[in-house]
């Protein structure tokens, strides 16, 4: 309402000045109260975040992979999730290239992994044959079954070079965790941060490295 075309005193006996002051004070108090309420909500919201206990339980885990044979796979628990450690053979590595045409995100451009694992092998260049991957389907969080044999497979298809098959909704991934085209999942399985210390791998902790 434009104030200058209203008479000085209003119907309920309030002048324009009074009205302005009242509106100002109401606004100030409401604004301040809203800020206070907003800040008061913070501790309640924060209290639902992972606690120190959860953080400690989710702390990095160590695994000695010196006994891991070629073609062998183990699962290690990190933050309650299965982390797949797969020592891939040279046939497996070769197979990764053959099926690239069938994959949805072969270069891992839209998938989640540390920079040092964003390559066609999805592994650290220091040990390219070792796949370290969260065994969690990116569709709805089931744990895919490994299909380590190369060649035709009833679930993976005739041209399979091995991979992972999710029993929940039929998503297919190759042996680098890359997702096939035309399945429910659309991104590759995630790679956790990791680093090597001799023959021990630290999963969940890469000390912030990018190479």
């Amino acid at each position, binding site marked *: 309402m434009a104030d200058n075309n209203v008479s000085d005193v209003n119907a309920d006996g309030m002048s324009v000045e*009074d009205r302005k*002051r*009242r509106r100002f*004070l*109401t606004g*100030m*108090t409401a604004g*301040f*109260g809203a800020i*206070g309420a907003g*800040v008061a909500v913070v501790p309640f919201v924060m209290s639902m975040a992972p606690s*120190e206990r959860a*953080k*400690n339980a989710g*702390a990095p885990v160590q695994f000695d992979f010196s006994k891991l044979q070629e073609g062998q796979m183990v699962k290690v628990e990190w933050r309650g999730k299965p982390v797949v450690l797969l020592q891939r053979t040279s046939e497996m590595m070769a197979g990764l290239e053959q099926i690239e045409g069938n994959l949805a995100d072969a270069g891992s451009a839209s998938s989640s992994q540390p920079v040092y694992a964003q390559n066609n092998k999805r592994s650290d260049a220091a040990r390219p044959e070792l796949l370290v991957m969260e065994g969690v389907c990116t569709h709805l969080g089931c744990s895919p079954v490994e299909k380590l044999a190369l060649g035709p497979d009833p679930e993976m298809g005739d041209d399979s070079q091995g991979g992972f098959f999710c029993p929940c909704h039929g998503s297919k991934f190759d042996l680098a965790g890359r997702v096939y085209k035309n399945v429910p999942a659309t991104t590759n399985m995630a790679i956790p941060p990791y680093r090597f210390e001799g023959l021990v791998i630290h999963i969940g902790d890469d000390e912030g490295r990018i190479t």
Partner: protein
Amino acid sequence: MKKLSLLVVALVSAAVIGSSAFAAGGHGAVVDQVHMNMSDKASLQNGAKIFVNYCLSCHSAQYSRYNRVAKDLDIPLWQLKENLMFTTEKEGDLMKTTMPAENAKAWFGVAPPDLSLVARVRSPDWIYTYLRAFYIDESSPSGWNNSLFENVAMPHAMYELQGVQKIVGKVDADSHGAIDAHASSDAVGDHKVVGDTIFELSHPGKLTPVEFDKSMTDLTTFLSYMAEPAQLQRKTIGVYTIAFLIILLILCILLKKEYWRDVH
């Protein structure tokens, strides 16, 4: 009406002050006052070091985490791992003792209590007095006794720091203040008053009595911190909260005055 309100306020405050003063007084044991400074990080760090070296081998602090202590006390992580932790432990682990509870019970007769909350169950003054009140006593199974906690099962864990003291006598209530002056004396053979008891140092330890008292102040400060780690942030947040509320109160008063102009 005003008079009645005043009377009510007076009665409430008298009851509250009276009862809280009584509650703070405890059960009448004579304890020395400890002068803690929660913002003195060096004191807290020293207390943590003593705690880990001398207490944690038998007592646990099962609700406290190493990394929280390190963060709150400004101890760098590498230092925490090297000096305060066993190699098998993770930095976020709870501070549990390495001694199995059954062994402890077999050795001492009672399992050593967990110390996470001891400063809230007792009081800082009590702990400060207790830690300094061990004396040699051939008649007790451990060879030690404590003038504040008679026949306690715990031996004097820190005798190598304090040395060995023996009991000389009790202070009667009237002269307590007078003898207290000797508390700061450093010489062997001098009398020292702890709580209501007079001690004499028969064998010196690694620390002088004054240094030992300072170390026990640090340890008490650490135990008080550990009983409520949140206290370090609590007061800071409190100051901002109250400042905000005072502004809000002023605004509310102005707003009420504004609206109540309508009321005649």
